């Protein structure tokens, strides 16, 4: 019942306008992750798995605290653990809660060919509608964060919903509720940005992290999940967070110039062939009594 209150502003693979678009404004929601106070306890992982009724996934041991290499179709939220050697040869542990970033300009939605398989609500949440998913995997290609994961049994793709079912009922996402250190916050994008900037300033001014900052990448129009990082100049250190994520150039070329050139060429070709037939007609040869109708002898 929950999603009845969520209105849609973008629809994947949709011809024509979005029904009800702009009929109602909504505040953009945002999840703030303060990596500087994350202790890697994985309570958010457990809460995610429980709320979304997913089974516990087998873990693996790779000599660190990393429990599995990446998210799975039924494991949407993963703490990435990285050992970062400082310049003075001491070691820093970097923990980052990794999940869908809910981009304002989502590459998955851009790449998706199936009508309504991916939607973006007016509150900014990007949600997969598996009933409409055709399992082509283009969203996997379109995503700059390696988020959508394919379930080979159902042949559909899954990812974090930002608990759209909870949010539509006025609740915070399950991960937020479970966080014991308060490193996770949820609210409007505006409020979260203020909170994040304040925390980053605190880190710069009082904790010796001169490069502390907020990760809200403009290349994808900003994200519905933002980070406070000890060193915002090197997001790659946090398990490969891209420093300037954009929708891949190949996807943009494919969905814009190539699409319009191709459509123009196909329609132009059809018209051209028809006009050729009107002008020149079939090639005359001696078998046909009608061949003298041709312009040429």
């Amino acid at each position: 019942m929950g999603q009845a209150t969520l209105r849609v502003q973008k629809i994947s693979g949709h011809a024509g306008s979005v029904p009800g678009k702009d009929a109602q404004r909504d505040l953009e929601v945002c999840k703030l992750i303060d990596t500087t106070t994350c202790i890697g306890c994985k309570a958010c992982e457990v809460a995610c798995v429980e709320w979304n009724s997913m089974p516990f996934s087998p873990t693996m041991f790779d000599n660190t605290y990393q429990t599995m290499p990446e998210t799975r179709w039924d494991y949407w939220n993963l703490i990435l653990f990285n050992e970062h050697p400082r310049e003075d040869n001491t070691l820093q542990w970097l923990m980052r809660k990794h999940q869908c970033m809910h981009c304002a300009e989502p590459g998955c939605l851009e790449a998706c060919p199936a009508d309504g398989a991916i939607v973006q609500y007016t509150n900014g949440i990007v949600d997969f509608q598996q009933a409409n998913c055709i399992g082509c995997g283009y969203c996997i290609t379109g995503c700059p964060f390696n988020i959508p994961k394919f379930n080979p049994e159902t042949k559909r793709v899954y990812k974090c919903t930002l608990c759209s079912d909870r949010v539509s009922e006025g609740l915070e996402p399950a991960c937020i509720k479970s966080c014991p250190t308060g490193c996770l916050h949820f609210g409007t994008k505006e409020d979260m940005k203020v909170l994040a900037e304040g925390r980053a300033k605190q880190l710069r001014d009082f904790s010796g992290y001169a490069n502390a900052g907020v990760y809200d990448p403009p290349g994808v129009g900003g994200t519905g999940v933002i980070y406070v990082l000890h060193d915002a100049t090197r997001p790659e250190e946090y398990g490969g967070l891209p420093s300037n994520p954009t929708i891949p150039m190949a996807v943009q070329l494919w969905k814009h110039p190539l699409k319009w050139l191709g459509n123009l060429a196909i329609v132009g070709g059809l018209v051209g062939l028809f006009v050729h037939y009107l002008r020149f007609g079939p090639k005359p040869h001696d078998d046909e009594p009608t061949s003298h109708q041709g312009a040429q002898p």
Partner: protein
Amino acid sequence: MSSEAVRQEEQPVPPGSVLRYTFRERAIHWTAGFSYLYLLCTGLAFWSPWLFWLAVVFGGGQISRTLHPWVGLIFSVAVCFMYSVWAPQMHFTDLDGKWFKAIRFYITNQDEKMPPAGRYNAGQKALFWFFFYGGLLLLLSGLILWFTESLPWSWRYLRYAAILVHASVALLSIGNFMIHVYMGVFAERGALNSVIRGWVTLNFVKRFHPGWYKELIGESSAANDLSRRE
């Protein structure tokens, strides 16, 4: 060519005609043709939201997505068979260069001004090689798209290349396909029959494939049909 004599033995043709395509050649052609049509329709459905209804016509988006790669394999196998049957006859010669230079006469139906084409004219050869190499590119990029989710993140550039290659070559193939259908069905009367029933009239051969006509005349002492020419 003795192979022509073999051709004539395969099936009877009407008087004043000659067998252009054997049953094997026709069967391969239509295997490729119908599988291409399916790939075209489902591919266009994934290409543009305006054409997604095509996927619905073919049983829905999921079924189209599931079958498109398998039909692609059928198409690829058919193209391989085409290669084995036709490649030896498709090598470009000096004459083909002259043919391309004179193509405006071909387009304006002044075929008598064209350099004499052999069994296949240069345009047909170009179409053949486009579909051979284009088919190969579509197969390779298609395999990447088929198993997109199995590629590790560090290999994602392969996915980026694959979507561009698959879409670009598919678009080029649509252009070639449209010209092919136009020529075969509308422009060259008799060509469609040649790939359905197998035979063409000698008048057709004389006008569009004079080089091949000469070869046939050379054999005319052996083939009774040919004595009926004009």
